[in-house]
């Protein structure tokens, strides 16, 4: 069954080809079957492959499969080859599993859209590209998936192409991430020039042998890879594309945020952990970037009015936690948060989609309210998602993953205490913005009359995801609570275990956990105090306007868009305003010269015989004179 590995990316690709080539001849039902079926089949294949993989698992840690030699010339050997190990299997399972649920949901959500076939074609290609990215055995194939993901996000963000703003958002996403991609490409050039090898495993082994820890080249390459990861994962300073990416249909956002695209950067860093281990300074940069992003994004999420933008900022913030974990060397913790985040973020987006759907594409949370009674399914699933994101202790998965990260930050030898404080404050903010959303949307009086609850195809994914958002956390539980280490044991075959400071005991872990729990609950409580309709503060504040400059700053994501507009976009636009080629001036001048010369010469052609005779005579004399000399 392991041999079927190649089918996993190929199945969604086939779905894409079928829909792209004859999508307009299929009925909507057939389109949905092809679109969902291809990803579903990939999920089933993943299960079969995984079952086979686990039969021999701890003894055989990876499985490689080469389809054909992609490039084999002049010292460069790169195959179309797959590499399956604990890490990539985890990614594949999430991508196909969650991806399938999102596809199923879309079958109903998009049912009345004109571009039904186009939508599913792009979605299938998106999944195929992401699967290529995570299964790639070498960096060039990874780059193929990497760029493919970027292209699909462009296509899907700009899916409703008639709106020019959506097109702008799509282009912004592609161009900003491409800046990161270019850095990644330069990283590949350096690695190849050094080692004439692009295999992810081999090149890292060679690098570990050749480069001492902290050597310049290792730092440069790690930094370039980081820029690539930061672009895709929407971290500072390339985070500006993600909030605008909300232009796409809601299932697209779910796919981008939960299963594909933004997690690519996290995967890349985890996959290249040997390289990053050679560059401790870059690792510190990752941790700090993660922390800063998570705080900036969480504070921006607090003041957004668009339900999807709140979720977009929350993704940036949660990915910030993953980066933080990667930065302090807690590789498995980052991947665990990736897993739980995929479940609850997909859930949140799909539930938000269901809200938007029933409110006839209303996205402003100030025009919602009281939906608890009208949309009970949506309410309860959304509540579970928000609780998981805030890290409600014991019963939600988000608690276990976030706790693991924060504990690693606390106890890691390469971290600082202030980073931990920042991250815990972030947990407080998370509770605050998550439940602000809940109270605004589902409580109080109804401001827009909702239509009906979603149908079965939308409800089933919500329920499954809600179940997962509650339960996947039990795969890994801390020492103080049951001490389950299924997940870390599993990933220890692909990623190094986290180093802990010596001399840390269980009681300090319990105290640390208590602090995190209190922070999360404090955030939720504060949200209830501030935003729950009927609460004291809410009643007092409701008359006030919210255009205070600091709020505007937060709403605009701390003004990065304006900064980049000034520093990059405007100079670029002024540079490209003139479509004339300045180099052509020189040649134009040459042509003008020739023209005026011939105009001047043509004056000599007068038609007077006397004039001609005189010039002939003078000319002859001059020539004779020259000869005589």
């Amino acid at each position, binding site marked *: 069954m392991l041999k079927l590995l190649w089918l996993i990316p190929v199945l969604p690709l086939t779905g894409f080809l079928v829909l792209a080539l004859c999508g307009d001849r299929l009925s909507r039902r057939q389109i949905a079957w092809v679109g969902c079926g291809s990803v579903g089949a990939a999920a089933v294949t993943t299960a079969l492959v995984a079952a086979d993989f686990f039969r021999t698992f701890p003894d055989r840690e990876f499985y490689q499969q080469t389809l054909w030699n992609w490039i084999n*010339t002049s010292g460069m050997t790169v195959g179309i080859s797959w590499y399956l190990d604990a890490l990539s299997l985890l990614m594949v399972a999430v991508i196909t599993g969650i991806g399938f649920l999102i596809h199923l949901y879309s079958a109903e959500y998009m049912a009345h859209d004109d571009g039904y076939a186009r939508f599913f074609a792009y979605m299938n290609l998106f999944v195929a590209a992401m699967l290529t990215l995570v299964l790639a055995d070498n960096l060039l194939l990874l780059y193929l998936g990497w760029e493919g993901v970027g292209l699909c996000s462009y296509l899907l963000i700009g899916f409703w192409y008639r709106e020019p703003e959506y097109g702008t958002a799509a282009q912004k996403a592609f161009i900003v991430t491409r800046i990161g991609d270019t850095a990644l490409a330069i990283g590949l050039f350096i690695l190849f020039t050094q080692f004439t090898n692009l295999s992810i495993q081999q090149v890292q082994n060679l690098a570990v042998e050749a480069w001492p820890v902290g050597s310049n080249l290792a730092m440069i390459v790690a930094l370039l890879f980081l820029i690539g990861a930061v672009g895709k994962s929407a971290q500072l300073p390339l985070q500006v594309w993600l909030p605008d990416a909300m232009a796409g249909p809601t299932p697209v956002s779910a796919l981008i945020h939960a299963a594909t695209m933004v997690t690519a950067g996290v995967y890349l860093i985890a996959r290249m952990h040997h390289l990053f281990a050679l560059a401790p300074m870059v690792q510190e940069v990752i941790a700090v970037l993660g922390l800063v992003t998570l705080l900036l994004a969480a504070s921006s999420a607090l003041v957004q009015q668009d339900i999807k933008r709140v979720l977009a900022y929350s993704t940036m913030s949660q990915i910030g936690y993953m980066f933080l974990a990667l930065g302090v060397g807690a590789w498995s913790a980052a991947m665990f948060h990736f897993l739980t985040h995929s479940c609850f973020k997909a859930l949140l987006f799909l539930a938000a989609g269901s809200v938007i759907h029933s409110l006839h594409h209303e996205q402003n949370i100030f025009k919602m309210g009281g939906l608890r009674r009208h949309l009970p399914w949506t309410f309860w699933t959304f509540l579970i998602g928000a609780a998981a994101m805030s890290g409600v202790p014991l019963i939600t998965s988000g608690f276990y993953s976030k706790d693991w990260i924060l504990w690693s930050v606390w106890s890691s030898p390469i971290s600082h205490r202030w980073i931990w404080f920042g991250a815990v404050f972030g947990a407080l903010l998370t509770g605050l913005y998550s439940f602000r959303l809940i109270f605004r949307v589902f409580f109080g009086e109804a401001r827009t009359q909702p239509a009906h609850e979603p149908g079965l195809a939308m409800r089933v994914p919500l329920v499954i995801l809600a179940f997962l958002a509650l339960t996947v956390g039990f795969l890994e539980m801390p020492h103080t609570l049951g001490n389950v280490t299924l997940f870390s044991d599993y990933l220890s075959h692909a990623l190094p275990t986290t180093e802990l400071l010596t001399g840390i005991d269980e009681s300090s872990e319990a105290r640390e956990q208590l602090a995190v729990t209190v922070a999360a609950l404090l955030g939720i409580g504060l949200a209830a105090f501030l935003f729950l309709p009927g609460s004291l503060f809410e009643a007092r504040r409701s008359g006030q306007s919210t255009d205070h400059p600091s709020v505007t700053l937060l709403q605009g994501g701390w003004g990065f868009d304006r900064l980049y507009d000034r520093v990059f976009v405007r100079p670029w636009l002024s540079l490209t305003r003139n479509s004339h080629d300045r180099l052509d001036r020189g040649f134009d001048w040459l042509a003008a010269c020739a023209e005026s010369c011939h105009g001047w010469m043509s004056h000599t052609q007068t038609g007077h015989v006397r004039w001609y005779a005189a010039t002939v005579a003078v000319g002859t004399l001059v020539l004779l004179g020259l000869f005589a000399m």
Partner: protein
Amino acid sequence: MTLWLLILIPILAAPFAWMGQQWSRHTPPLIAIGALSVDVLLALFLWNQGPSVQISGHGFWLVESHVSWIPRWGISLHLGLDGLSLILILLTAFIGVVATIASWTDIQSRVGLFHCNVLLALGGVIGVFLAIDLFLFFFFWEVMLVPMYLLIIIWGHAQRRHASFKFFLFTQAGSLVLLVAIVTLAFLHQEATGRLSFDYADLMELTLSSEMARWLMLAFLIGFLVKLPAPPFHTWLPDTYAEAPTGATIILAGILAKTGAYGLLRFTIPLFSEAMSELAPIAMGLGVVGILYAALLACAQTDIKRLVAYSSISHMGFILLGAFAGTELAMQGVVMQMVAHGLSTGGLFLLAGALEERYHTREMGHMGGLWSVMPRLATMTLFFACASLGLPGLANFIGEFLVLFGSYATQPIMVILASLGMVMAAIYSLGMMQRTFFGPVRDSRMTPDLSNMAFGTVLVIAVLQIWLGLYPKAILTTTKPVMEQLVQAAVASANPIHSRAESLLSSRSVTSQGTIP
């Protein structure tokens, strides 16, 4: 004789295409497609035979044909085929078919004469790729020029006079410099051996003083850079590409630009490898300037054909960068880029021409929202925009990346600068899509979508792009021996004990016996 057939089939078919007009409007294009298809098949046959084919000569070329022409001046009808020329001839004939199909509805008047000129120009191009006597090479170099000029001035758009003059003057000035250098080279050979010769193999054995090598290389470089084109000699191109009829633009961009690149690889580098170390950084620098400058201008264009034209200059910058990098990997990338760019711009110009034919404007400001009106055209343009921005999995990516990988070892800073071109390529390609196919509908006229024939053609190009993007081996193995020798020759020239020609000869003979490890 097979090689002569490759050249003569299009040239002999040309008058028939002209005469065919009296039968029906569709006879001339059919004759052209027929002749070019025969060429494609012939080239495929030679490809299939591989290195085992050896008709005459001393094992220097895969296939060679040598007939004396003007013995007094050492000029002979000497043709030779190796992996590089084979691939380019296949490309030429194929793009020729594409150009003919693109002209199917575009050309309404004097259809016969149009196709006669197309066939003559293509015959000249194939001659350029085959001639290994420098005089003969120059002869074909000029043969392809005149019909191209006629194509632009007779069937071009509003500004055709200006464009065709500019095209002719630029390329002719470049040719003049080239001619002077060729003749000088022949006389230098006479000085050294007492015998005039224009033959490639003879001239290869010539040892030049470094001063002389530098000047002659510069002259060859200028001659070919005009054609490629690279800044500062590129300014003829946007005017010409925009004003020429679609079919001619496809030939110009898809094939004629490749003759410049071919000249660099076949002549400039091996003949004057003494001067490589001095001139290579300059040439590579020009390549990088071309990539960035043209990409910048492409972003500024509002005329869709001019945009594609500037993007084309930008892509040719990679060829210049890789050709002078001095590594086999970069050279292989150059070959790949030549083919990939031929296919992608061929496709893009066909589609841009189709847009122009339907809307009678090239201004993207007048278009917008056309996706719903013409889904086929829009989808295919999206595909080729992706190819042009270097999406992995398509052929352009292989070309560009091999060049960058191969050049990083020698010129890291230049490669980093060139990589910025990838971001700019994204900006102009997506900007083009946005302004034409996305956004609100500006022109609500209902226009027909791409015809089945044109759609089929671009689909074939797209399949080739994907095939070469995922399986570039098909081309890379064919050209590998050629590139190996080029690099070896360059290395040998740095080491004077070993003569260049000797190393070229010895390694070639190995190739022809097919015993490469």
